[in-house]
């Protein structure tokens, strides 16, 4: 039986040919299985660079049909290792774009993986100033407001 192939087009015009198993991992794209075989499906808010990573993730996460839910721990571990390497080698800016893409395409596993990467970055920071620097956030606190927050919650900062 020949596999159905689908063409995804990124916002900047790159084309990605993927099979049904990849498309099914996206809740947003799943319905297109019925309509779009053979036609190009535009994904307007994801660039080629990011879509490439999304497709790479999905290809690696294709669930073997007929496999039981309690897959062997060794293959589970190998997948986890792949996920770790996949997400850790990216810079934060790419991870953010990946979060937005996974959110839009509704790919839970990828969304969770990318969010966890950002969470890990935050947890590694020793204080709020380091968090701002690492994530590229400008504080909107005035000195008085910051002091007020500290005061209202002072017992927690001991």
């Amino acid at each position, binding site marked *: 039986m020949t596999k159905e192939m689908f063409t995804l087009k990124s916002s900047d015009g790159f084309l990605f040919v993927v099979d049904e198993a990849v498309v099914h991992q996206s809740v947003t794209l799943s319905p297109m299985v019925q309509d779009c075989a053979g036609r190009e499906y535009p994904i307007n808010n994801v660039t080629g660079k990011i879509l490439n990573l999304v497709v790479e993730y999905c290809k690696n996460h294709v669930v073997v049909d007929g496999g039981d839910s309690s897959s062997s721990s060794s293959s589970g571990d190998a997948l986890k290792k792949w996920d770790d390497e996949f997400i850790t080698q990216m810079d934060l800016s790419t991870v953010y774009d990946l979060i937005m893409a996974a*959110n839009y395409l509704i790919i839970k596993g990828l*969304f969770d993986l990318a*969010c966890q990467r950002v969470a890990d970055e*935050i*947890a590694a920071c020793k204080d709020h100033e380091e968090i701002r620097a690492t994530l590229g956030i*400008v504080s909107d606190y005035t000195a008085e*407001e910051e002091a007020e927050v500290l005061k209202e919650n002072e*017992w927690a900062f001991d």
Partner: protein
Amino acid sequence: MSCSVRAKTRLGMESNLSVHEVLNTFDTLSEILLLLPPEETYKLILVSKRWLQIISSPFFRHAYLARWKPNFHLIGFFISNTSYVGKKHVERVRRPRSESSMPLLSTSSLGDEVETSGALKKLGYYIDSSNGVLLCGRHPKAYYLWDPVTRKQHKIPRHRVHFEEVCMSLITEDCPVEGFSYKVVRGECVSYAAQSSKVRVEIYSSKTTTWSYSELACNEAVSLTPWTAGRVIKGVVYWYATGGKVAIYDTEDEEKRIDVIKLPKTFNYDEQVLGESSDGCLQYGWSNKSVMEIWELEKVGEVLEWSIQFKVNFKAMWRLNPVESARFSTRTKETQLLAFFNQNSDSVFIRCDSHICVFDVKTQRVEEVQYQGRGSSFVWDYCKVLPYFQLSWPCCSSSLLEEGNI
């Protein structure tokens, strides 16, 4: 992703504090913050006002506490002098005017503030507390709720059915949108001679703002013990009943039932306390001059069974803590079990004379808890000492909430 589905209506690009859309969008930022353990929370609120607003919102708190265990902060210890409360009019002892009806031994700056401001002065006697919300009042005339976050009191509408003697409990429930809602449960206490398999209760709900009366059916005759502090765990109320029993009432159960179970066999106990374990089970502890025992009520299949958690011999305990032992003169003064921590099985409060300490079950170490109010003159042996905990969660004052559009 559950957060983003529900919060779709809250989407918006608020102040652009970051070049990255992810960190400016409520949905995705919340999902990331939900992944961080409780020890990070107070670091996060200082990053920006947006982060503070998200974290202190009831919506976020509800999602977060569904995932992570809540932490509690000890505000102080309330003293409840049992000779003043309840009892038939004739037996009741009059409280001297100079003495507060709800004295608080403060262990925190909030506690200090409460005592000096006299915020709780007119509110009667301590009844119960839950997640920091305080239930107090004067039976049967008036009951109040006091919230440590807003520092406001609220008088509960008058109940409809009169019970001569009661036991009362407070249930708080964290709702995603409205924040905390609560229920006040009153149970009628009849004498042992008049015990019956029907127990009358009345519940006030903040959602309906009305009282509703029920008659609960029990398998056996029961009489609840009045004026005692029970324990509430996830909407189930546990009250002492005469004959060495504990009554169990699930307020969420449509079936209007109350069950009774015998407490583990104890002989000549001086103190008994109820609490909640780390895994949400009922904890029961008792102590006498020489020992204390902690039990847990566990569900084994369909049946509830008591299982002993630990037993401590006080002499042996003090031998392991010689410095404190010498300071507290433990040879001449009695030690007793005082209370449990909130949702915690790792430590308990004990008392020796006027010293309150934390006993760590694993290390067997004793550490004193410093409190304000040592000078107050009450007789410890006639009092119940009840720790008052606040839910540890960042506060966001209303002025900071005005900006931004959560």
